[in-house]
């Protein structure tokens, strides 16, 4: 198979840029930027290859790579008890992770373009940036626990420095808070992974870290290998994973760290953070949390819905009273991630599809939003709502795109946000209509806070000091148009996402008990 190493190629392709950057002198700012941006085109092209060669009809993992990686012989050879403790290097994608890799590549390139605003220590910035890319690709491509964990951790270190060095005034505290919360999350995840590895063998009885084998073992009815595993342990494991990924998502009350990141990190990094890193929480929750423990997830579904509702409404109400555009969007992210939880809580195919659509859709929308914040900041040096106003006069294009992004975010049909919101709620209405009805209050509140923020920024009279502010430059227009293009594409032609999902969902959904259509 010609594409057999494609996933590894994508994951490691940012190394090319890292190596080249390493040889460029620090003071060559222009060249560093060019390499930084061009370097992201390599994974972008490769991920389009992945998209093009993905087989929609195949319900299994595709582009699978499996290499014997770590092998430690264990046991006493004299007693004839030799078996080896093997961990494989395993990669693969299905209809859920493939679009996420493409999303990562697209946002990665556009965030690199947005990095032209970065003024200092460009060399280190771009090296860390590409390191971050490797981590993100790896998370979505990894097919076993160890590899997943390594890549997951690999995103933390560059993020820590990217926030702490290139952020705004209170950047160091934000970086520390980021590391603290995510470190705790990772510790919980690691413990859960180890317990899974040590207590849950594959169907053939050998210990395994492979996602597919573990999920199969856990979903085999009356699996003799699992007789010693109590239901409470399984539930505990699910809960641990829910918390670990919930911190990342983030789920109330673990969300305060991400507010600081959203406000303090540079816009290009927030594009990645809000666009992709948060989604690793959703992805992990689906792939490992719900994927391994569907029954436990099902038992927990009501709580998941409650937490989802809290996220949706709490985030929306708080977004309404924020004074800083960045904070509005930070709380907006919390609110929108609540919809992911609601979709999962529905525990049916429509809800799952809604949650996955929301993950992708919010990735594009929030990346666009934060890109725009950066663009506006360049001109006004503020993101405080009270200091802005009437920008549509001097920056009609930027203001128009901002309004369009807000419309996408509040779920206007014809844009991606509508499809995801609609599906997530529709799924939930099938099983928990009252909770779903409560959640729809969020649809109104989203309109309230987004229009408040956007109209105060772009409508009304314009302060004189912005008289000479220029509208978008070509390098700024490209990311706006590309992101908006994807948002509209998904909104008008959702099949582009739903088609690869169908076969994969069939794999996930039947193992969920009590699944309704």
């Amino acid at each position, binding site marked *: 198979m010609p594409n057999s190493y494609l996933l590894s190629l994508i994951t490691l392709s940012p190394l090319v840029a890292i190596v080249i950057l390493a040889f460029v002198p620090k003071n060559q700012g222009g060249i560093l930027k060019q390499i930084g941006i061009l370097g992201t085109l390599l994974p972008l092209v490769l991920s389009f290859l992945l998209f093009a060669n993905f087989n929609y009809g195949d319900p299994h993992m595709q582009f699978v790579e499996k290499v014997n990686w770590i092998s430690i012989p264990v046991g006493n050879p004299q007693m004839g008890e030799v078996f080896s403790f093997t961990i494989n290097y395993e990669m693969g994608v299905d209809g859920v992770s493939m679009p996420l890799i493409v999303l990562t590549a697209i946002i990665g390139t556009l965030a690199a373009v947005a990095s032209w605003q970065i003024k200092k220590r460009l060399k280190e910035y771009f090296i860390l940036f590409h390191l971050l890319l490797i981590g993100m690709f790896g998370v979505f491509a990894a097919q076993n626990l160890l590899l997943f964990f390594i890549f997951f951790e690999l995103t933390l270190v560059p993020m820590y420095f990217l926030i702490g060095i290139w952020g705004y005034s209170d950047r160091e505290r934000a970086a520390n808070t980021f590391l603290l919360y995510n470190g705790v999350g990772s510790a919980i995840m690691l413990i859960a992974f180890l317990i899974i590895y040590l207590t849950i063998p594959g169907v053939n009885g050998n210990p395994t870290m492979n996602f597919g084998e573990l999920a199969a073992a856990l979903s085999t009815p009356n699996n003799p290998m699992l007789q010693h595993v109590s239901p409470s342990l399984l539930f505990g494991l699910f809960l641990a994973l829910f918390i670990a990924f919930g911190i990342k998502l983030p789920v109330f009350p673990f969300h305060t760290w991400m507010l600081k990141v959203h406000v303090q990190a540079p816009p290009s990094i927030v594009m990645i953070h809000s666009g992709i890193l948060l989604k690793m929480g959703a992805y992990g929750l689906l792939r490992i949390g719900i994927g391994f423990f569907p029954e436990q997830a099902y038992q927990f579904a009501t709580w998941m819905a409650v937490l989802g509702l809290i996220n949706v409404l709490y985030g929306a109400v708080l977004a309404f*009273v924020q004074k800083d555009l960045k904070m509005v969007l930070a709380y907006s992210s919390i609110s929108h991630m609540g919809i992911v939880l609601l979709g999962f809580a529905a525990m049916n195919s429509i809800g799952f599809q809604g949650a996955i659509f929301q993950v992708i859709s919010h990735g594009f929308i929030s990346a666009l939003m934060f890109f725009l914040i950066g663009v506006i900041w360049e001109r006004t040096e503020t993101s405080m709502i009270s200091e802005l106003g009437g920008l549509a006069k001097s920056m009609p294009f930027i203001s128009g795109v901002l309004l369009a992004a807000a419309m996408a975010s509040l779920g206007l049909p014809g844009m991606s946000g509508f499809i995801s919101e609609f599906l997530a709620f529709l799924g939930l*209405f099938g099983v928990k209509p009252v909770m779903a009805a409560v959640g729809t209050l969020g649809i*109104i509140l989203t309109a309230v806070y987004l229009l408040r923020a956007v109209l105060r920024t772009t409508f009304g009279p314009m302060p004189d000091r912005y008289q000479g502010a220029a509208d978008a430059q070509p390098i700024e227009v490209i990311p706006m148009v590309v992101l908006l293009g994807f948002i509209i594409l998904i909104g008008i032609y959702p099949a582009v996402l739903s088609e690869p999902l169908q076969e994969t969902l069939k794999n996930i959904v039947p193992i969920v008990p009590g699944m309704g259509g």
Partner: protein
Amino acid sequence: MDSIMQYAWLIPLFPLFAFIVIVSFGRQLKEGAAYVGILCTGISFVLAAMTFWARFQPGATDVKTTVDWLEMLDKVVRMGFEVNQLNAMMLVIVTFVSLLVQIYSKGYMHGDERFPVFYQYLSLFTFSMLGLVISPNLLQVYIFWELVGVCSFLLVGYYYFKPEAKAAAKKAFIVTRIGDVGLFIGIALLFWGTGSFDYADIFNAIALGRLEPWMITLTAVLIFIGAVGKSGQFPLHTWLPDAMEGPTPVSALIHAATMVAAGVYLVAAAYPLFLASETALNVVAYVGGFTAIFAASIGLTQRDIKRVLAYSTVSQLGYMMLALGAAGAAGYVAGTFHLMTHAFFKALLFLAAGSVIHAVHTQDVFEMGGLWKKMPVTGWVFLIGCLAIAGVPPFSGYWSKEEILGAVYAAHRYDLLWVGIIAAFFTAFYMFRLFFLTFVGQPRGEGHHEVHESPAVMTVPLVLLAVPAVIAGFVNTPYAPVLGEWLLDGSIGALFKETGEHAAAWVQVAAILVSLLGIGLAYLMYAKRSVAPEAIVRPLPWLYQLSYRKYYIDEIYHAVFVRPLGWIGYGLQFFDRFVVDGLVGLTAKIANFIGWLHARLQNGQVQTYGVVVLLGMVLILIGYSLTVQGGVPFAK
């Protein structure tokens, strides 16, 4: 022979094409954008007229085509189009009014800085409205329902630099969205109840009794809530008068003739659902009836010419709802019939008002006066519009209003009949109050000596709209109910039980009498000035205030919803900062400690971090192996 109906999907696409062209080349086109919009809408109008004619032929049947749009594992959502009697009629109304408004706007918006943007929005609106009308399923309706809403928002806020326009646009969007959520919930529940979004499937499921009666009532009321928002019915009417901040052609097209009528259209399109629940029909009837009289009573005292027309629109839409909810087959016909005639005469009134505003640069009727000689065409068409809406025979409004009152009477809903008659009196009074104040007497404002008639590009559309405002009623007279028979021919008609009852003659007489009474009173007060308005107000000044202040509804909403939301927000803000973040304030201390530790460790050496990570992993492994001795942790 019905081949043209197969191509009805092209009707919305021409305005969409215009939108794309103007978006792409707006800067080059400048005011030429108007021609693109007019041409494309013109083609749509011709196609719509041909489609209507094809459907009107005896023996013609409905056409419906759909394609797959979104897979949901075992269900597929399909998109497409449908042509039936109701929407064939709507297609003609929408394209006709839209075409005339676009022609008119070429003159009205002349010289505006953002001229092409205006035509972008107009074209996008026309596309969305046509898409809504042509939809064969509720999901597609919802999609276009939201799109027309956003176009309305954009056009209300067209003068974005004006704070009032900004506030009005926001209000229009949010208040209608409250209704939209009701519609959304209704659609979702219907989907789970019937397994489909399709009108036909849903009606089938109802006919087969697959939905519980309470579910039918609930979903019908929820869908009606959507209609309440869009059609400005009480209690979600507050956005519509404020929406008059938009340019006047927009008010004519969106906030009088088409979009606000979408709520009425939706109830009519989903009528089999409503028919299955008497409760739901009653809700429609009483909300409509209340809105009709309530809004009319506000219209009596307003000073702004566009606001009077806006309250009049709210009131007339209430009339249509009243007809749909109260009175079976006859009410269904009367409601949709009034929807049609109202679209013509109300668009006419708005465009004529726009012509006046264009000339005198004020919207306060007490600053106008004496324009009859200076603006003869505008004066005449405005008079025609007033006669039509007041229900003076033989103008179009007479026939449809008479039909509504007759149907309500025949259904023995005498309480609602009185509501309708009183509202008709109010309507005749405030419309002629407007007419006399504007066109008769002495000029009251300043700078009126320069006033002259609008250019032909504006007056020609006025005249073209005046024609149906006069004659459209003849398509459905009691002597030849052509429209009614045609609308009821087919599946919808079969759902009605024929009562065979007809309105008593006194209802007709009363309808004409109250209209003339209203006109006469307005004449005495504002033209002849033999009755002083103050004399009527004096005994009950608070009643006047109540009407003039719109019953303080805006103030009440502000106090009950808007301000508490802010309080809750600030309360939660405090909670978030000091409780949620504070709880982990403890951990924040630890963070500082780690940060301090980091500073110690931070020598830029990646190795150091590697060591820390490794150390952590080793510690965890050791901890684990200690607990795992002799068994599995946490497990029995």
